[in-house]
């Protein structure tokens, strides 16, 4: 086994009403997911502005995942529908600029889906680990 295994930095924006509770449930059910995932709680997935995602990459994230309520279940009725459109366009644009599309993801996780949260995070960390360090959207000033 390699000693200095590469550990990616992952930022997970989680909506307060579903996904954050889902993460909580994953914790209380003792489902493990990698410690590299840093969860940021937002009132709604719709609160996440494209700048937040770019900013996370600037500050050294290797992958950014956005979790919200399932479409139709938004606490604010329709927030996540807007998220869905915005992120579809943003991710497509990032891909267009040649930035690896696997580094960004949107996943719908309800408060009851602790297992899905853990599985999603495990899968996402694995994907990003395979990609290696974020080089295309990095700000060298923020690197060591």
């Amino acid at each position, binding site marked *: 086994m390699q000693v200095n295994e590469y550990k990616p930095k992952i930022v997970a924006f989680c909506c307060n009403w579903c996904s954050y509770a889902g993460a909580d449930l994953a914790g209380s059910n003792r489902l493990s997911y990698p410690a590299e995932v840093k969860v940021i709680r937002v009132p709604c997935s719709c609160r996440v502005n494209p700048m937040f995602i770019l900013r996370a990459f600037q500050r*050294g994230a290797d992958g950014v995942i956005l979790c919200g309520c399932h479409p139709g279940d938004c606490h604010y009725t329709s927030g996540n529908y807007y998220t869905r459109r915005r992120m579809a366009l943003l991710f497509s644009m990032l891909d267009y600029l040649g930035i690896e599309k696997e580094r960004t993801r949107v996943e719908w996780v309800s408060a009851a889906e602790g297992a899905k949260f853990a599985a999603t995070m495990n899968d996402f960390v694995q994907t990003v680990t395979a990609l290696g360090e974020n080089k295309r959207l990095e700000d060298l*000033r923020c690197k060591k």
Partner: protein
Amino acid sequence: MRKISLSNLDGLFAKIAEKSKLYIPVDDNKGFAAFKLWAEGVKMSNALNTVRSAKDFFFPQMENLMEFKTEGKNIEIIDIREEKEDFVVFGVRACDVKSFEILDRVFLSEPVDSYYASRREKGVIVSLACGKPAETCFCSAFGIDPATPAGDITAWKTETDLYLKANTEKGEKLLSQVEGLTEDCDDKAVEEQKKAITEIVKKLPLQNLPLDKFGKGKTKEYFDSPEWDELSSHCLGCGTCTFVCPTCQCYDVKDFNTGREVKRFRCWDSCMYSDFTLMAHGNSRVSQKERFRQRFMHKLVYYPDNNDGLFSCVGCGRCLSKCPISMNIVKVMKTLGGKENV
């Protein structure tokens, strides 16, 4: 005077690049020139001038000044200045060479700006005479001769050869470094080219600007001119003119927090921007008119006031071709100075 065949230009560049970094104007994929680091295979552009000016070499668009580490109430100040490397800039036009003199008067006056000074000290300027000036050129209005640019070395390019003449000690040193490649020659071809350029310059449309109407002590005359309203009325407030201008030297000092330390950097700023003079309690230049006026008054009156009548414009024509709405210093001069003089 020394000369070298154009076919051996790469050899000359390679020789210079042995000792120091060499920058030459290079065409991009769209045919616009920019100064790039020379390396084997990089070809010099034939364009008259680069889109950006050469001021970048001494006053880069962005540079880190110092760093701070903060911990609790403590601050540590880290001086990150380093000894700069020698470098050579090849193919600087007469207008841009003159712009260095204008920048020098700002940055090298007391207190000396060490960031600028250390680059200025290390740079060798090889200027190139303008064989084919463009219609937007008006350097000769400011007393600049495009046929004999200043610089450490002056170069002339003919159909077949490149002629080199050193003007300073730095230039002599560089010429002696490439002595084996060049041969001694007379200045017949150069004199011919100079004559030809002088003839062309006479035909350029913007040579007789009413410069005598501007300069020292004219603040009161123009500051409240009603013409500013119309001149500035469609200004977008972008920074294009400022950023392509070889003599614009205003800068901003800002902090960037990297998460580990704070980097204090400076970057070009534009007096055309609405936040240029913005303070917590308000802005002393409230509308685009005041900002627009500041830019041109600075070039034509304020700078000459503080610098023995020297104008802060070199007539490179970049703002003429780059302004999104085609508003520029020539139009300002003509409008304020009276069209009958042109």
